[in-house]
């Protein structure tokens, strides 16, 4: 599996650390209900098919939002997280 880092180009999966679903980009307000925090931290769609998740490129320190298929491991898009809310 190869992931395209927006800074460094196409790199081996081993250079990246997986963080989890892009739910992490939708942080609730500080005073949101406990349910919103539970959803943000724990509950997941966990799709079999297309998913969007966050990977960290260890050598350069870039966070990448990867759109990929959890069944085939095909990678469809890699975008920088910088600039998005969260």
């Amino acid at each position, binding site marked *: 599996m190869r992931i395209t880092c927006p800074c460094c180009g196409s790199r081996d999966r081993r250079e990246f650390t997986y963080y*989890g679903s892009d739910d992490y980009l939708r942080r609730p307000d500080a005073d949101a209900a406990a349910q919103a925090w539970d*959803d943000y*931290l*724990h*509950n*997941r769609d*966990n799709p*079999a098919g297309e998913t969007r998740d966050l990977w960290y490129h260890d050598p350069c320190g870039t966070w990448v939002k990867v759109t990929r298929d*959890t069944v085939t491991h095909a990678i469809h898009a890699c975008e920088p997280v910088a600039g998005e809310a969260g």
Partner: protein
Amino acid sequence: MVPERGDVMRYSGFRVLLEGLRGNRGWRPAWRKPDPKPAYDVVIIGGGGHGLSTAYYLAKNHGITNVAVLEKGWLGSGNIGRNTTIVRANYFLPGNSEFYSHSLKLWEKLERDLNYNVMHSQRGLINLFHSDGQRDAFARRGNAMLAQGDDAVLLDREGVRELLPYLDFDQTRFPIYGGLYHPRGGTARHDAVAWGYARAADQRGVDLIENCEVTGIDIDQGRVTGVQTSRGAIRAKKVAIVVAGRSSQVAAMAGLRLPIESHILQAFVTEGLKPCIDHVVSFGMGHFYISQSDKGGLVFGGDLDFYASYAARGNLPMVEHVMEAGMTLMPMIGRAKVLRSWGGIMDMSPDGSPIIDRSPVDGLFINCGWNYGGFKAVPASGRCLAHLMATGAPHKVAARFRLDRFATGHLLDEEGTGSQHNLH
């Protein structure tokens, strides 16, 4: 106690002898292949180890026999037939400790209970440690195991050398300081566990329905009323979701979003060799563990591939990592040829511990979050889910496996790494 059906064929040494003399013409299929009935008291979704054992204990302990297990493939086609078969009770946290202790006790009488040879072999398990700090942590764990009534022996380096002379004790990165020995730990034949529970549940009247995929869950005014399947609609008073790596998809049919992320765990087996590894050896620092199957193959594995996946096969980085760890620990393994590798879809929970609970939908139950450790749990998990479904109250050894514990903060983080999906 429910009377067994009349035409039950019991297995025994005598029977094997007799059938041998009669040309083995008397053996009958181990379970029926019924068509689904229109309605059941209980429908269990998923014919893996946990679904089958739940059905068995519903019938045996609670007299609930109007039960169907719906399996989308064939019985045992999921993780129950893909795991590395380690059975142990060396947990530390209250909540886990009593549950796995209970499970090991059920294992110890399982073959008599099921009248089935599951090849449970208590060959002993050794968890290696590599520093003074780790020794302290394992001493603490061993004490917790003893306090729970199970067995644990803290071995020093020479003690380990006596049992496992083939290890490389002086490797520079992780020199071996000793090990925590759990003599009652061991292995069992994974398929046989599924088949044994299947046969015993069938004998008590449970319908095991293969090639029957659940495609929808029917809910009326907050109460479950049945399921939609590839073999038609089936009504049910109670339904349990027991589908391991597929938990999120099936729960979504009832509008639920679970604290589960599915990951791949790989395993490997070598060509058959003469007996050389007598125990289960776990090298936690290197993420590697190994045992030798009764057929002679070295069965070993390591860590998750560590990203969400439903591929049921792994990628090469973890293959390389596991091989490197094996070579570091026991250089002799380099002489064996790897025959096969495979992967299974694991239902990972944020804190690494399971869930056996009601769902917010009345009559709908959920059993999931077994991570990479659900094989050893098969007996107790089924027993506890059956208890919950039959009595309405959680079994006392599974009372902490709550679905809402992430929201309330009552976590069961056995590894102490934090409650987050990418950490277990």
